[in-house]
């Protein structure tokens, strides 16, 4: 199977699966079908990405669908997140399905929306046209909005409304940016339907109207930045993350934000090429990235809710990725490496936090004590993944953050490097304080440890082992993927 043939199937398959899961009449069945369908899509996506990485960019449907190294790398991160989350959903919803809190109808709807958002994000990654990419982002907003309030509690409704409104407005702003990009094609003589194809635009980059393109890029960064959770446009993010069911939070944090950031990254080389590689577009990303890191650090210090803490940590990590891409060169490769690390680590943290929340009945940090003894797998998983996320040494997150820092120093951006270190330091101390309290603060009332099964332990600890391994040794193929993807970003040449 060549990559050209599988690209359309990648979008169609989840849509079909979604339609089927709406018809299922059993909660457990729907959840199982979800996992199976996601794994099947993931296998197909894996083969496609492999072909692209071996054989170069694939284009099909008159150039409307395209997969190159950058999108293939994102695709791999996405299927990882979706596979882990769909497997975890089996565990997370087990009790709810058993005692009827999750009705078969709700589970069917959950499956439909799950595959719908998978298809929407897939559309973002495989479409070559900036317009279709936008349609994908908007569709993923609408799909995931309902995933937040599978259980219609007041908090979940509020979170959904905030998310829907802020992201709809953000995406509308991004659309204005796309209109400006389309207007910028005037001098290049591009017409009609092909004017917004990314590959066409890149070829004609030197002939585009640079002023219009700059204006368009600002709108695109602000618009998609809202969806990506870049500060100061991140207000919806902690609410949506903390009120969604844990598998959904994992998808939000692990890939939804990255999908929006991906759209910004797509436009970055375009602006850079059209404005003569002066680093104008990059400096915007550096500013937003640094701001996100610092704002997230400030909020993490005051946090009392574990899921909100993880959400702000996502703001921080998206900031690190934007910063790395903004620095450029080796920084871009480091940012993409960071994306992979974050997409493995953060879902695990949300999985553990979600189960612990179910066991303790609260997400309040002061109430979560002695978590390793009470829930060995989930407690240890949460603490290890949090340690990995704040950048403790042997984990790969440390490595990628270090590479971003090194890139900043290499480009003589000393102020940027200093602020970056400051933000990381504050987060490190603040989270470490919470980790110590969760692990060793004596509990007010003792309860026996919760039983766990082998699959649960495997689901948590295999990904964490991979993160640990990546911190010490990056396999050659991965290095190749990263450098090829960074080339697309105009980084390493």
């Amino acid at each position, binding site marked *: 199977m060549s990559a050209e043939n599988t690209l359309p199937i990648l979008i169609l398959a989840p849509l079909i699966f979604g339609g089927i899961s709406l018809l299922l009449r059993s909660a457990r069945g729907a959840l199982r079908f979800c996992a199976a369908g996601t794994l099947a899509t993931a296998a197909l996506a894996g083969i496609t990405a492999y072909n692209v990485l071996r054989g170069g960019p694939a284009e099909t449907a008159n150039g409307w669908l395209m997969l190159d190294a950058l999108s293939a790398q994102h695709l791999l991160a996405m299927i990882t997140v979706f596979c882990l989350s769909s497997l975890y959903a089996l565990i997370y919803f087990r009790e709810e399905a058993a005692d009827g809190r999750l009705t078969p109808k709700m589970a069917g709807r959950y499956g439909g929306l799950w595959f719908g958002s998978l298809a929407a994000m897939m559309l973002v990654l495989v479409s070559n*046209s900036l*317009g*279709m990419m*936008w*349609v994908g982002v*908007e*569709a993923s907003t*609408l799909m995931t*909005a*309902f995933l937040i*309030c599978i259980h*219609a*509690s*007041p*908090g979940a*409704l*509020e*979170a*959904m*409304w*905030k998310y*829907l*409104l802020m992201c*709809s*407005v953000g995406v*509308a702003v991004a*659309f*204005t940016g*796309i*209109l*400006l990009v*389309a*207007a910028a094609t*005037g001098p290049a003589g591009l*017409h*009609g*339907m092909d*004017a*917004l194809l990314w590959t066409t635009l890149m070829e004609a980059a030197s002939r585009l*109207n640079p002023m*219009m393109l700059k*204006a368009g890029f600002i709108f695109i960064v602000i618009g998609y930045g809202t969806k990506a959770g870049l500060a100061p446009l991140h207000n919806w993010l*902690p*609410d949506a993350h*903390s*009120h969604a069911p844990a598998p959904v939070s994992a998808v939000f944090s692990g890939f939804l934000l990255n999908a929006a950031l991906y759209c910004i990254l797509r436009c970055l080389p375009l602006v850079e090429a059209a404005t003569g590689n002066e680093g104008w577009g990059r400096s915007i990303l550096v500013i937003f990235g640094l701001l996100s890191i610092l704002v997230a650090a400030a*909020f993490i210090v*005051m*946090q*009392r809710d574990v899921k*909100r803490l993880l959400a702000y940590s996502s703001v921080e990590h998206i900031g690190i990725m934007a910063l790395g891409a903004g620095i450029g060169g080796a920084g871009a490769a480091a940012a993409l490496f960071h994306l992979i690390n974050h997409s493995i680590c953060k879902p695990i943290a949300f999985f553990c936090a979600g189960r612990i929340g179910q066991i303790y009945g609260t997400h309040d940090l002061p109430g979560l004590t002695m978590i390793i003894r009470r829930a060995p797998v989930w407690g240890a998983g949460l603490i290890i993944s949090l340690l990995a996320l704040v950048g403790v040494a042997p984990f790969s997150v440390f490595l990628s953050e270090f590479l971003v820092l090194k890139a900043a120093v290499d480009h003589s951006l000393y102020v940027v490097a200093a602020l970056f270190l400051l933000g990381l330091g504050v987060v490190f101390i603040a989270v470490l304080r919470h980790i110590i309290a969760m692990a060793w603060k004596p509990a007010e009332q003792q309860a026996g440890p919760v039983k766990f099964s082998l699959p649960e332990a495997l689901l948590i600890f295999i990904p964490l082992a991979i993160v640990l391994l990546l911190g010490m040794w990056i396999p050659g193929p991965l290095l190749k993927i990263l450098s090829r993807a960074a080339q697309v970003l105009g980084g390493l040449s």
Partner: protein
Amino acid sequence: MIILLDTLLVTLILTGFLLLGSSRLGASIRISALQGIMTGLLPLALEHGDLFSYVSLLGVAVIGLKGYVFPRLLFSALRESDTSREVQPFVGYMASLFFGILFLMGSFWLDTRLNLPVHSSSDLLVPVAFSLMSCGLFLIVARRTAMSQVIGYLVLENGIYCFGLAVVSGMPLLLELGVLMDIFVAVFVMGIAIYHINREFDHIDADRLSALKG
């Protein structure tokens, strides 16, 4: 045709002012419907009488959606919610109107500064688009009820639509359909969301949705 086009554009600005100053939800919905119809008529006025072109069909579709479907959806949501019919502003009507005036002047200033390559026959189109977009954003920020925020979102979309008419020549089919489809879905979803929010809280007051902080 210039006079027709200018009259439409001026009416669009006036509907923006009306929305900023109106205090009843029902009236706001009707005004936004009128604004939608005006927006839909714009491409017809721009096309110089070519009634059966693709652009005209698009205009007809916009009129149908914004002038009929959305208002009906919003009205049914309003009926079901059975709550206060007041807009409940954070910023008073007078202050809102003055903000509207500021937006208008700012839009004209911005337009002269940007000097966009515009394809349309009226040089009012871009400033009107900017002014509608800012009005829409202001309505979203400065109104308390979920319903007025939806209306603000519609005004924002109308502005973007005008902007698209002004700057994009040839108009890629898929993009335009994308706009229509998405705002349809967006408002539909928001309507359902209002219903849910109402069922859960007995009101459609997004302001009281403020338990989540920090």
